[in-house]
């Protein structure tokens, strides 16, 4: 709950709450749905049956645990999405490098942030291309599932080719040269940001300690 608050309040202040909720749901929905199904119906040691569906039963213990898991998934995806929506890639890379992180490590950190939107973009263009060729991606669930097959292959192969080309382009611009890069600028570090950062750093051991002592449940 604390983490959720830590995500929602900054998102409201930044005016990105609707985008955060939308993107966060999009990213976490598949894993959230499977976590609920598995825990509600197959929770080991669940006794208090709240719904019987043939040979399988949903239990209250499973439901309680599923709610806990959902809260954690929401907190993790919310925090990652907040970071992605509020941090410019250039700022992230330059600031990490400025603090002594190697250019490659900083680039990998940035690439992992950008992977999801790139794949979404690639998938959208492939879906549009396949639709133009008559692929039916709407209608019944069966049709939609059949429509996924000719899209997944090109998305995966396209992503691999994309990574290969990006690697070559980076190599061709001296990215693998050993030694420090020259940085042209540094992102501004406002006092409020400095204070917030150090408060979070101080909060971390306190929260871990409180958790270990059982004060947070």
């Amino acid at each position, binding site marked *: 709950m604390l983490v959720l608050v830590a995500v929602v309040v900054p998102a409201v202040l930044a005016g990105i709450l609707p985008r955060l909720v939308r993107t966060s749901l999009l990213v976490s929905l598949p894993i959230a749905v499977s976590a609920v199904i598995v825990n509600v119906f197959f929770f080991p040691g669940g006794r208090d049956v709240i719904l019987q569906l043939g040979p399988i039963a949903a239990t209250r213990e499973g439901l309680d645990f599923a709610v806990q898991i959902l809260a954690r998934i929401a907190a993790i995806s919310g925090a990652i999405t907040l970071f992605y929506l509020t941090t410019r890639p*250039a700022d992230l890379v330059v600031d990490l490098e400025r603090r002594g992180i190697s250019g490659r490590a900083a680039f990998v950190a940035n690439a992992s942030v950008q992977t999801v939107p790139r794949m979404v973009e690639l998938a959208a263009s492939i879906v549009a291309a396949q639709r133009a060729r008559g692929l039916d991606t709407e209608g019944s669930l069966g049709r939609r599932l059949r429509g996924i097959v000719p899209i997944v292959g090109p998305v995966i192969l396209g992503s691999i080719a994309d990574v290969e080309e990006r690697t070559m382009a980076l190599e061709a*611009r001296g990215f693998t040269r050993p030694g420090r890069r020259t940085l042209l600028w540094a992102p501004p570090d406002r006092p409020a940001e400095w204070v917030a950062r150090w408060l979070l750093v101080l909060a971390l051991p306190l929260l871990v300690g409180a958790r270990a002592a059982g004060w947070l449940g």
Partner: protein
Amino acid sequence: MLTLESVTYRYAGASRPAIREVSLRLAATDVVGLCGPSESGKTTVCLVASGLAPRTIRGALEGRLLIDGEDVAGRPMHQLVSRVGICFQNPTTQLSGVSATVYEEVAFGPMNLGLSRGEIVARAEEALEALRISDLARRDPSRLSGGQMQLVAIAGLLAMRPAHLILDEPTAELDPAGARLVADAIGRLAGEGRSILIAEQRTDLVARICHRVLVLREGRVEREGRPAEVLSDPRSRDLGVPEPSAVRLRRRVVEAGLDAGPVDRVLDRGATAIGSRRSAGA
């Protein structure tokens, strides 16, 4: 001088070589075109000439890549980037993804080289000026058109100040307007006496800027010579090389029983113009 000496290249895991015994020479002010159908080996020649194959794209290389007379087989990629620059088809994959502005994107290569800030600024401004995109300097590179992005990619290469530029179908993934924008810029670079190896399906551009053309088929050089000779030869068409518009026009003119002299002069105009500009600049 960039030289490929009897180069054969087989990609890791491939059963047969992608190119066989390819030789070419790219002198200081040469503009050489590579033509041929898909899978003829154009991209592989570009990758080998840039040094990316086999350093980044694994495979077995036979023959030699010489830059200014030096066999560069043992040199790592980062030592070659100031001597040879390569531009690929897809403009979006050539953006670093970490630059907030076009200016930073163009400066990305010199920053990687660890140059002084003054040197980086000088190179970035020179490259933007060379491509005539200084007005884009403050724009977000990811929000440009495909043609503009490709110009930014080429400017990024120029900022490395390589002696030789390799362009692998730089207009292939662009719409007609973007392709025209990039083709015009490449035409200007060629006219300035830069050393360029360009793989290109659009033979109008090759006919306009190159003064030597190699036609590849199944990894071998099948024909080599002046654009006016090679691209107007029906055998090139049989090899899968589309005729330039002027050649097609000439064929139609001849078929109609008219005088083809004026069209012949148009075919030779590109190379002659480049030659005369170089002579003037020398």
